[in-house]
């Protein structure tokens, strides 16, 4: 994917997902939202990382083969799961105790907009007028480490990282990191800090498609997308 003013290709969804997994710590428990985040699962190779789904399971790592599905083993995105010896099942009360209680270490989710103070809007498009909240508000409001994976701009190349979200918010002041198709950003003290650029990208090109002033570390690193 490349707009005419882009200095290089943007990453594809799989590359974004794969790169986001670089930021997961071992022995941690992770919740993956629908869309790009759900693609992360296949790139997590550390067996000490446990995947959690809102509907009452953690410890899964693979979707079931289509010929061998069982509706009793599903993730929150509606995908059927292959069972393994580390999986545990529980009800929705306990599942959200884990989320609200801060027992989930990291949540990776998509977004329509993220603001420089870490607000996220990911559940409703205003012109549609209705949307689905699901577990997103609980996850964003209560997880220690919130990573957003998304394309850097809308299809019209409009910024999704903005001064202030115009879309209805999912949670305030919660996003720690954003992995997009052009770079990796941290949110710190009300600032968007560019940490890594996609190959061939530079600060100025990224600034041009970002709705807020982007701060930088002394030395910008290129995303090493082949070695995650």
């Amino acid at each position, binding site marked *: 994917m490349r707009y005419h003013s882009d200095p290089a290709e943007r990453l594809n969804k799989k590359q974004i997902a794969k790169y986001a997994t670089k930021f997961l710590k071992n022995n941690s428990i992770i919740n993956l939202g629908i869309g790009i985040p759900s693609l992360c699962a296949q790139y997590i190779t550390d067996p000490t990382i446990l995947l959690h789904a809102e509907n009452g399971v953690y410890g899964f790592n693979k979707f079931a083969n289509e010929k061998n599905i069982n509706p009793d083993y*599903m993730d929150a995105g509606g995908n059927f799961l292959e069972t393994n010896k580390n999986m545990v099942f529980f009800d929705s009360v306990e599942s959200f105790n884990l989320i609200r209680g801060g027992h989930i270490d990291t949540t990776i989710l998509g977004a329509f907009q993220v603001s420089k103070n870490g607000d996220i809007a990911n559940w409703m498009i205003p012109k549609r007028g209705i949307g689905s909240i699901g577990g*997103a*508000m609980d996850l964003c409001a209560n997880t220690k480490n919130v990573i957003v994976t998304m394309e850097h701009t809308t299809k019209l190349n409009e910024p999704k990282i903005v001064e202030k979200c115009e879309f209805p918010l999912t949670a305030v002041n919660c996003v720690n990191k954003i992995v997009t198709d052009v770079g990796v950003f941290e949110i710190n003290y009300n600032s968007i800090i560019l940490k890594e650029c996609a190959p061939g990208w530079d600060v100025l090109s990224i600034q041009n498609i970002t709705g807020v002033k982007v701060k930088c570390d002394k030395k910008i690193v290129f995303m090493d997308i082949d070695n995650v």
Partner: protein
Amino acid sequence: MIGGFGGSGGQPTRLMLALSKKKLKGLTIIGNVAGISETTGYGWPKNIKPVDQGIFFRTGIADKIICSFPVPASQNPKSPIENFWHNNKNSVEIIPQGTLIEKIRCAGAGIPAFYTSTGVGTIIENNKETKFINNKKYILEYALSADYALIRASVADENGNLQFRGTSRAFNPAMATAAKITIVEVDEIVKAGSLDPNNIHTLGIHVNRIIKRRKNDIYP
């Protein structure tokens, strides 16, 4: 209340079909993911035509829904609940999933209200009481009960004790405690004492009626 999570596992599909055929009006439906399987296939095996909570809005027996996930991400084709919403904007109440399940749990647990940080700073906070506790803002949320819970379990014993399999537990146990009458659809009924008494997921005192499904029902 309709148990399960959304999708086919843990959903009381046979009870829902039976309910949808009753000559009723004005039902309020409480569920989680609701009405998106028919258009998207969410949580259903590919070879079976999905049944979901949209059925109550297509047939018109319901006129309100309280849920967390009523519409699919894709805007087209429109789901029955989105169509209903267009003319009944105040009759679709969308609640964060964790708040929804805790409201239901609290109804069964005698807790009339609780504080949560979920929804702070969003439209969920509108018109709600809030409180700062240890310098953090929380929203006061109230218990949510129902007249009936239709739920789905894997196995019941003669005392009404229930067990669920895998992720099919979801909203079922909490709903069983929060309704005046709980009706459960099960695959199997076994003798009292044949389930491990340490591993009962829903206590029999919450269960009022048990319906056993036919073996090899076309719905999972």
